[in-house]
């Protein structure tokens, strides 16, 4: 009996020792930050804006109370300073583990963002799987203030937009760090743009959309933008494009054809001759016809070939113009061409990597696109056409 009592006593003591209450922080003592925005003012100080969840109001928006989040800002010499100053405005403790989105204002991006990155890789609370955006033509603070109707939090909306249109999930921050820390590829970041969704006179019509890609040089200063269509080309070249809808006008026919492109692959072959480099880029993909606004009957294999040929031609032209723009205008290798040399000619790379951006902008490029149309949907020719209008 006494032994049992002893065991009970020991268990009781253990219970008090192992409750783990030391670090307890109740959810209503925490300011859960979902999105961060960073800007720089004229004096060079950083302005941080945080989108903070107001737990009680999430989901109650339909009943018209509150919007589920608040936006607070603070300034400081560094990000840590900003966080400290922000805390002074918050009754709850800043909690960063759930943060999903970081947005950088354009001015800060142009001045260079190397000073705000370290805190993100050092802090163990912060996940490396984070979404990273640049706000074109604006301040990150404005972005966080834009109400977005479909999601509770605008930050969530931004990352969902990115996932459903462009590519791999939540890897932009890691990809950025990887690009910044390695030679042979320069980092890029997706863009968000604030636009007016409906008629301008109406109130509350501001919303945002996903743009193309912001190009950073090796000093992590913003040098330029790619449009959305050009950023698709870039994704295809670096082998990260999942699916994309492509439309093209047919030569010699009226109307256009749209396909759902899939299985995009790319191969970059550097060829070095006489200290001069040439890149052969082979791009392939499969497509399913989703829209046919021409009179062509797609049951006929020859008509499919016409479509394939036109797609190959047009995509190739666009690709060349994108690459030339990157080469001549920005002189920054964001396409991983340097890495392909590093992999194939590692010895040559050691000599070249110092002035790679010059070599890159002088390199000759050839592009070959090969789209293979696999299916045409459940009709051959458009159903609304009369028999006589169909082109066999």
């Amino acid at each position, binding site marked *: 009996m006494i032994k049992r009592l002893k065991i009970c006593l020991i268990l009781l003591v253990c219970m008090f020792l*192992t409750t783990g209450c030391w670090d307890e922080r109740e959810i209503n003592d925490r300011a859960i930050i979902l999105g961060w925005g960073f800007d720089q003012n004229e004096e060079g100080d950083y302005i941080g804006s945080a989108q903070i969840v107001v737990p009680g109001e999430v989901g109650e928006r339909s009943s018209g109370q509150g919007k589920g989040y608040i936006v607070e800002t603070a300034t400081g010499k560094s990000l840590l300073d900003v966080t400290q100053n922000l805390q002074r405005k918050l009754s709850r403790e800043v909690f960063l583990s759930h943060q999903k989105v970081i947005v950088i204002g354009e001015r800060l991006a142009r001045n260079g963002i190397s000073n705000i990155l370290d805190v993100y890789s050092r802090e*163990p609370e912060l996940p490396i*799987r984070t979404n990273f955006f640049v706000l074109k033509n604006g301040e990150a603070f404005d972005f966080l203030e834009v109400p977005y109707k479909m999601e509770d939090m605008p930050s969530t909306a931004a990352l969902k937009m990115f996932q459903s249109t462009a590519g791999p999930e*939540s890897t932009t921050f890691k990809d950025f*760090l*990887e690009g910044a820390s390695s030679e042979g590829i320069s980092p890029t970041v997706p863009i968000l743009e604030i636009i007016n969704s409906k008629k301008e006179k109406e109130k509350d019509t501001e919303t945002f959309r996903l743009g193309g890609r912001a190009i950073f040089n090796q000093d992590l200063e913003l040098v330029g933008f790619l449009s959305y269509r050009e950023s698709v080309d870039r994704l295809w070249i670096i082998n990260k494009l999942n699916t994309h809808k492509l439309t093209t006008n047919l030569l010699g026919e009226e109307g256009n054809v749209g396909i759902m492109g899939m299985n995009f692959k790319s191969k970059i072959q550097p060829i070095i001759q006489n200290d001069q480099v040439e890149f052969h880029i082979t791009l392939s993909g499969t497509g399913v016809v989703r829209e046919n606004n021409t009179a062509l009957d797609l049951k006929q294999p020859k008509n499919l070939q016409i479509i394939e040929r036109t797609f190959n031609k047009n995509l190739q032209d666009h690709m060349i113009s994108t690459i030339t723009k990157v080469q001549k205008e920005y002189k920054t290798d964001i396409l991983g061409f340097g890495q392909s040399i590093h992999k194939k000619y590692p010895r040559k790379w050691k000599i070249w990597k110092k002035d790679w951006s010059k070599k890159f902008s002088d390199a000759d490029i050839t592009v070959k696109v090969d789209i293979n149309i696999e299916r045409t949907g459940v009709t051959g020719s458009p159903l609304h056409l009369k028999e006589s209008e169909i082109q066999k």
Partner: protein
Amino acid sequence: MKISKYQIFWIIASLEIGMVLLLTQSPAIEEAKQDAWISFVIAGFAGIGITFAAGKLSLLYPNKTFIQYSQSILGKWLGRIIVIPYFIHWLSVIGVIFRQSSEIIQMTLFTQTPIFILIVLLLLLVIYVNYIGGIESIGRCSEIMGPLILLMVIITLVLNFNNLEWDKILPVYTDSGLKSILKGGLTPVSFYGESVLIMMLLSFTEEPKKGVTCAIWGVGVVALLVTISTLEILMVFGANLSSRLWYPFFEMARYISLMRFIQNLEIIVTVIWIFSIFIKLSIYLFVSSYGIAQWLNIKNWRKVIWFVAIASIVLSLIYPNNNVASVSYLEQYWLPFVLPVNMILIPLLLWGIGVIRKNSKQIDK
């Protein structure tokens, strides 16, 4: 106190894998860049070699521990002196492991808890397991925890398959060269080499000969898993980024995101990783208490546990910060001293002299 040969396998595997995954990958990748996985392959074979030598040495006197047979081989006084480096090694490493592991637990799980509390709680657990059953209960614990630890590593590796980009390990060899690859293998070898602990453990096994085979298997399995995980780290983060992350394997566990709901697994990984630390600390505590008891002819080795426990608290708190405890300890003591002397030189020396003595005795007969 007796342990089975399978328990030897689980003890060796679970005591090695935790710290190897935590501390060796970043320095190896820093040295050998994207060829670090080759360093790990080489280190794995070297580790197996060290285990083999230590095992062979112990098999000369299968019923004696290292402390006892060093006296049989070298004579009473020289044999006693040659084990002193091991006591320094064991006691100091207990302190360092306590410090590092609680530092990491504090960083990932309990950010506000004082480190002293974490160390004491872990220490009480380790003392308890030693006091209640010595090596036998550690063996049983590792039989339960070992499979969980290996499973945790395998799950982390499998769940990262969708993040891999295999061409990140190119180009092979040209960027680093043989010298860097070998240099990168140094830290992993020094961790695999901790299997020299079997010199103290083999005398407790029922079948010492098979115990050696199992210990070698233990090192082999760990080496294989760690090599694969290094490959994956390189393919996920690339050589530049992963050399700068302090704990790339944990970072990889955090990076898991499958179907948008299997996320934030690092907590589970940390908790299971603590199992490995627990086994490692218990073994070191057991070995040093038992060893000191035999060395000083103390009958009841359990009394020595208290001395070692207090020493390890002191040794874990003397470091001014985490960098000294991990980086300086590794670079200034572990790599230049423990690896060549304690893991290679002394075992080989004793093995050589031991074989000669045995042979001459047989000739005498």
